[in-house]
């Protein structure tokens, strides 16, 4: 049953490769993503026991990521049908196949309990995203793709070295060699400290660059800026979660060893640095897609801060992971619509989007309010919990800086978003074909509804799952 999560999308990828017609091929995406969503839901309710060798299992952390990713992917694939009907001239065979292979790889990341397997799956997600970023086939997108490929490949290679160090620390400590997560957590305290320490640093750098934590985020603005909105949504809402899950696995081992506190300290610093970077570069950003990339840097920073604070903040950090991926979905999809309607993503030309694309512009505005932490949307709840946990722990510096950066980012982002949505429409505007229509508006609208609902009410099963997951990270007794 668990393997269905990986095999079904692969089957879909093969099928989409075989369909000869651009127009019909697109329908493979929603069909398989809905099936995948159904399988995920079934697995969340009735979780099968771990596989005999212990490689495959769905633990609470995996469940959270699976939930967020399946919902986001389903929305994106529904959106893809509408979006690709505007871009029929461009062949979409590679796009459809890569999207589904990527879905398979993200599912493998979620269910693997063996760090080697997890690494392979994570590298596979990196590679399948490359053709997606390059979808537009122009000079700018190739530059973004090259930067993305090189930085992420090198980063993930460093993570492999970290994994080797971790395995070697078991050899030096005369333990049974294994990269199975339960065994590593059990033996964490007995591993050789020198090698374990080196392993944690390398893994943090490797997975951190995949996740886009500053100062390892340099590929992010280019890749997010040049990729189609649909791909941007998956990068910022889906792949980020996979890299984060890899980091959480390392966190689990660190928390079980004596180095938990040091690891947290490093995460806290990197998180605050990421927020600072985002605050600086968000100001006067004239490209609204790049602005979203910096917003993504900010939010992985917020999650890292929550992980660094530990204890009660872990619950909030995990909740923020879900909120961030749903809200990023709305932001990227609606901004993709605006981009299509104006044929530009520079704030110089895109103004008064509320006139041309009222629905998308309204969604963009609402999602902007949500992502910057305004009530009553979901990110407000998680950000509030993180801040209150920081002050509750007596960590006033972190809490203060956190609030300061949030305020700066709100101002910076507003100065870009508000003119785009509300400003005067420029007189000599290019004519374009795209106007708001149900297929490209309803998916982000549904997602926005979800963000609103989660802000007002977190269902009890989700709450329990979040608590269980936080317990795995050593957060709650």
């Amino acid at each position, binding site marked *: 049953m668990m393997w269905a999560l990986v095999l079904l999308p692969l089957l879909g990828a093969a099928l989409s490769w075989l369909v000869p017609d651009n127009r019909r091929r697109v329908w493979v995406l929603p069909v398989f993503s809905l099936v995948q969503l159904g399988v995920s839901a079934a697995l969340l309710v009735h979780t099968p026991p771990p596989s005999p060798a212990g490689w495959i299992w769905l633990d609470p952390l995996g469940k959270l990521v699976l939930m967020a990713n399946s919902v986001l992917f389903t929305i994106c694939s529904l959106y893809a049908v509408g979006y690709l009907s505007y871009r029929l001239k461009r062949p979409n065979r590679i796009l459809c196949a890569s999207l589904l292979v990527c879905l398979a790889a993200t599912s493998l990341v979620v269910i693997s309990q*063996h760090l*080697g*397997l997890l*690494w*392979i799956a994570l*590298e*596979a997600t990196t*590679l399948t995203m*490359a*053709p997606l970023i*390059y979808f537009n*086939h*122009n*000079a*700018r997108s*190739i*530059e*973004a*793709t*090259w*930067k993305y*490929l*090189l930085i992420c*490949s*090198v980063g993930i*290679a460093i993570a*492999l*070295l970290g994994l*080797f160090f971790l*395995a*070697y620390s078991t*050899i*030096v400590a005369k333990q049974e*060699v*294994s*990269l199975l997560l339960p065994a590593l957590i059990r033996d964490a305290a007995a591993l*050789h400290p*020198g*090698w374990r320490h080196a392993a944690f640093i390398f893994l943090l750098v490797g997975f951190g660059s995949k996740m886009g934590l500053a100062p390892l985020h340099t590929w992010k*603005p*280019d890749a997010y*800026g*040049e990729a189609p909105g649909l791909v941007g949504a998956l990068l910022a809402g889906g792949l980020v979660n996979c890299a984060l899950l890899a980091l959480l696995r390392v966190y689990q081992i660190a928390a079980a060893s004596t180095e938990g506190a040091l690891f947290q300290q490093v995460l806290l610093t990197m998180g605050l640095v990421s927020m600072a970077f985002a605050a600086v*570069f968000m100001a006067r950003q004239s490209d609204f897609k790049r602005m979203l990339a910096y917003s993504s840097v900010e939010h992985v920073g917020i999650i890292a801060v929550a992980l660094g604070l530990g204890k009660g903040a872990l619950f909030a950090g995990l909740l923020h992971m879900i909120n961030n991926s749903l809200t990023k979905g709305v932001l990227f999809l609606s901004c993709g619509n605006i981009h299509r309607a104006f044929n530009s993503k520079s704030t110089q030309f895109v103004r008064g989007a509320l006139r041309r694309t009222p629905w998308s512009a309204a969604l963009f505005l609402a999602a902007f309010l949500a992502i910057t932490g305004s009530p009553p949307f979901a990110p407000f709840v998680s950000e509030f919990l993180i801040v209150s946990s920081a002050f509750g722990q007596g960590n006033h510096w972190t809490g203060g800086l956190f609030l300061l950066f949030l305020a700066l980012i709100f101002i910076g982002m507003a100065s870009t978003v508000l003119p785009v949505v509300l400003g005067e429409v420029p007189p000599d505007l290019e004519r374009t074909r795209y106007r708001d229509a149900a297929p490209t508006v309803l998916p982000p609208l549904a997602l926005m509804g979800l963000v609103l609902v989660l802000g007002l009410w977190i269902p009890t099963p989700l709450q329990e799952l979040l608590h269980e997951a936080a317990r795995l990270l050593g957060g709650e007794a």
Partner: protein
Amino acid sequence: MNSLADQLLVLCLLINFAVLGTSRLAFSVRCVAVQGVLLGTLPALVHPFSWHVSFIVVSIILVKGGLIPVLIIRAIKKAEIEREFSPFIGYIPSLVLGALFTSLAFIFAAKLPLSPEHEGLLIVPAAAATLMSGFLVLMGRRKAISQVLGYLLMENGIFLFGLLLADAMPVMVEAGALLDLLVGIFVMGIVINHISREFSSIDTSRLSALREE
């Protein structure tokens, strides 16, 4: 047995310098390929015979010595270039830095707490030196193909370290890592091809439209 392994590792180290010191891309590709083959034969020398080890040997030689070089040579032919021009870090400084990193790698490795059966082997210093040489090529060159070669050198260094674990790593993980590497190089080859068509050059310093002012 181990003296032969050590000789091969010294050869690996020398190959690093060959790559650091040359501007001819095809020659660099061959060097990295030879290094890959050496790397592939090492598990057979270090570890006792088993099906697991022989599978690793065959697949590494096939991928690193055969498929990947073919992919890169094809990209070079398509892009119609032979040499690296005016690298960010010149060849002589590269060689000097390479020598520096190699000696540091030896000093560093002597201090590492290794498991007793691995002490006295050259594997760890060779791995560290190859990794650093890879970084140097990656950072110091302009051409996209040179950067791929730097990445490959880096991967070779990591694989060298992986030798210490060869009987501990499950076959599936090794095979998966190799497959990922192969697909990665394949994708990079395609991207290089598109770069050369788009910019009529594969000089990555021309990729600057997205730079933040």
